[in-house]
């Protein structure tokens, strides 16, 4: 397993501070799916709950966390949509062609005359990302306040 690839899941500040020693440690660790999953969870946590003193000193920490969460939520949706769209396309479903058409931002019409616009998809993606980021940021803030006592 290439641990260095998983290291790139961590924030850049985290990698600069802990990257070398973290790699030195994991290279001695048996490469198991459980260990890999633990690294992925650790990386997600490092993004959602900053662990470095320097990160705490940045301006607008809540706004930065919100933007980061929104970007992650949007990227996850787009990734899932890409996978689903191409799977559907390969399977020959007309809905797959519709989805891919929407993805490349052109209005698409399928044989039965159903139309859909790329803008509609993007609005849904953005709305879900905004809701997820707001909910995630509020939850992290509450958790952080509880942890701070």
């Amino acid at each position, binding site marked *: 397993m290439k641990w260095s690839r998983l290291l790139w899941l961590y924030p850049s500040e985290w990698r600069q501070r*802990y990257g*070398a*020693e*973290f790699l*030195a*440690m994991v290279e001695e660790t048996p490469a198991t799916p459980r260990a890999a999953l633990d690294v992925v969870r*650790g990386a997600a946590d*490092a993004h959602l709950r900053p662990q470095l003193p320097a990160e705490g000193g940045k301006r607008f920490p809540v706004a930065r966390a919100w933007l980061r969460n929104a970007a992650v939520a949007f990227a996850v949706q787009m990734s899932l949509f890409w996978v689903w769209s191409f799977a559907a396309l390969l399977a020959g479903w007309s809905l797959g062609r519709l989805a891919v058409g929407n993805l490349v931002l052109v209005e698409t019409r399928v044989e039965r005359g159903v139309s859909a616009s790329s803008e509609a998809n993007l609005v849904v993606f953005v709305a879900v990302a905004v809701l997820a980021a707001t909910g995630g940021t509020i939850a992290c803030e509450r958790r952080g306040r*509880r942890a701070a*006592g």
Partner: protein
Amino acid sequence: MKSEGFDLGRFSEPAMLILVSLAGGEKHGYAMMEDIEAFGGTRLGPGTLYGALARLEKQGLIEPVPSDDRRRPYRLTGAGSTALREQLSGLRAFAATGLGRLVAA
């Protein structure tokens, strides 16, 4: 008794294990992992270990030891020793209460 700034959420248990491990002397990450498995019976994953390490360092409870090795060792700070002593004293009182009640029952 809970010391100020020692509540680390879901990382409380790994943090305690790390502090106890470092109470036995400075160690790098892999040595901590092995030591914790030996005395605690649990093996911390790499992500969990470094998540807790980073928070402990942020709170000033541990500090890195200068080293030329890639495997950077860590040690307890004075605040870390105090926090660990408070936590363990609290646990001892808790255990004594529980055991006392069991004897009385």
